[in-house]
């Protein structure tokens, strides 16, 4: 291959992440790029090691899906010294020096939370609404940002109130367990108006818990979450969920294009290539499910 790209991926902690990896491979193949993926198993230290090793190997470009926003300056400095362009995927980093990377192809996780919140505010209207929130892993940046965005969106609506918020660690099992105790704590679930989950997996767990307690998610309870993985479309198609905000797994495609253009004639891409964060509703759910089910989610 003419171009070798090293991709420091966070891991495969969720279906979405797996999809991002497999979409990246597909996109690389399309363009005849040799993609080396280093899986960091959720650890920043492994990502730094991977970047260092990519530099030592002399790859043509490095993609980095940073597990955390801080702490990249030094290693990116090294990449810069070695004149290897770096592209950030799905999240940006905290850095004074934005010359450390070529561009960032990301969605805005705060914005995602905001979109979810706005959807809820619009759907609920003026009535009082008790919201349960399933947070992501404590301390992880999507959890922090999706909470922040959502809080911003509902701040203007005093009738919307988060009454309980716990972490479900982004997993179905924990989502279900937390929802079970929420139901007990909120009077058998009769007063619950809406559930906001930081990702679809937790939401799917929550839907099961609600159904098992004899409640009707998607009908009596508004279910909104983020990611747009196939299974949530299935739930929407069955009327058990109401909305999901998309986070596209195709971050690598635009990144490859930017790198190829840069390598060819030095074209500087914009510093931030933002992907779309769009709300999907039950009406298109069945079609979306078919479109996505083989993407490796």
């Amino acid at each position, binding site marked *: 291959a003419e171009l070798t790209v090293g991709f420091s991926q966070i*891991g*495969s*902690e*969720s*279906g979405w992440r*797996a999809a991002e*990896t*497999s979409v990246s491979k597909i996109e690389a193949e399309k363009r005849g790029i040799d993609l080396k993926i280093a899986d960091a198993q959720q650890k920043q230290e492994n990502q730094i090691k991977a970047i260092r090793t990519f530099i030592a190997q002399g790859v043509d470009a490095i993609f980095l899906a940073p597990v955390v926003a801080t702490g990249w300056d030094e290693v990116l400095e090294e990449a810069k010294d070695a004149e290897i362009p770096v592209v950030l995927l799905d999240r940006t980093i905290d850095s004074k020096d934005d010359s450390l990377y070529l561009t960032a192809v990301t969605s805005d996780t705060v914005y995602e939370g905001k979109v979810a919140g706005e959807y809820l505010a619009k759907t609920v209207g003026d009535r009082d609404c008790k919201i349960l929130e399933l*947070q992501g892993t*404590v301390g992880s940046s999507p959890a922090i940002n999706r909470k922040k965005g959502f809080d911003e969106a509902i701040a203007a609506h005093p009738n919307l109130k988060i009454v*309980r*918020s*716990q*972490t479900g*660690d*982004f*997993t*179905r*099992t*924990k989502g*279900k*367990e*937390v929802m*079970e*105790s*929420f139901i*007990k*704590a909120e009077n*058998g679930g009769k007063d619950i108006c809406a559930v906001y989950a930081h990702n679809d*997996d937790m939401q*799917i*767990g929550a839907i*099961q818990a609600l159904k*098992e*307690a*004899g409640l009707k998610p998607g009908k009596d309870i508004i279910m909104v979450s983020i990611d747009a993985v196939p*299974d949530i479309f299935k739930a929407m198609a069955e009327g058990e969920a109401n909305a999901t905000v998309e986070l596209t797994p195709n971050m690598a495609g635009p990144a490859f294009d930017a790198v190829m253009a840069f390598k060819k004639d030095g074209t500087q891409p914009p510093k931030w290539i933002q992907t779309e964060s769009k709300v999907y509703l039950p009406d298109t759910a069945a079609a979306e499910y078919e479109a996505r089910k083989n993407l*490796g*989610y």
Partner: protein
Amino acid sequence: MTSTLPGRLSFGALPQFATLAAVLLANWLVFPDFFDLRLQDGRLFGSVIDVLNRGAPVAILALGMTLVIATKGVDLSVGAVMAICGAVAATMAAADYSLVAILAAALAVGALCGLWNGFLVAVLDIQPIIATLILMVTGRGIAQLVTEGQIVTFTHEGLIAVAGSSALGLPMPVVIALVLGLALAALVRLTALGLLIESIGVNRTASTYAGVDSRSVLLATYMISGLTAAVAGVIAASDIRGADANNAGLWLELDAILAVVVGGTSLFGGRFSILLSLVGALVIQAMNTGILLSGYPPELNLIVKAVVIAAILVLQSPAAGRLFGFLRRS
């Protein structure tokens, strides 16, 4: 001098039950409806049932873990084995195999994992923590290999019923945990297996010299641990109707070890009690559920957990026992 926690139900069980009572009481304080029960569709609902139901996988893991720890070992791989067996079960369910075939396959895989661990420990003489660390790392990869990194979901009625149905008004996982616990307790106490396990755990050299077949006993012990992990894995998969190779059983090995220790079995091997390990698992789940019910922000979860564990340690420590004894006498 050296002190061993008594492993017998008779007089030594008091600290464990006292701990459980204390944690339940604390739950009741932070959440007054904690003990409310409600019957719906022939099935009980309530926070206490949640504790039992959610605690079942850890309780089941703790069964096998108790035996392994009694041999002076430890099995770090149970979480990963759960993931593998869950993945196998889910993929087979998605391909519509019969429930019997699914269960047989999952249990066989679990037993195989256990045998591998046992082989490393008993035959190659690798230290248990490292021997099982290998499968802890590799196993999750194998599970992902089975699911190809995706969350495999299924609508297999039979498999869903494993965690989703109920018997005697109790969720099926609770029934499974109880039956397994009693069966295993019977297996080790009605045969000589329990004695041989304890004997190896206390002094493997002396036991071998006394003619005990330490290798086979160790192999059997790790295999039982693999089997219990398989059962827990199937329950976890059945519960969410899918296999999440990444997260199924993640860090559950620590909970299981904690359950065994809270149950009074010494990490230095020897005396053990299966039933008290079940109590230990309940203590841990009661603590977890209490945290969820309390409504405290999730940032506090770990601190609360740490403080509760520290309190349990203080209460159950031999030093505290001596102090109580002293106070009672004077």
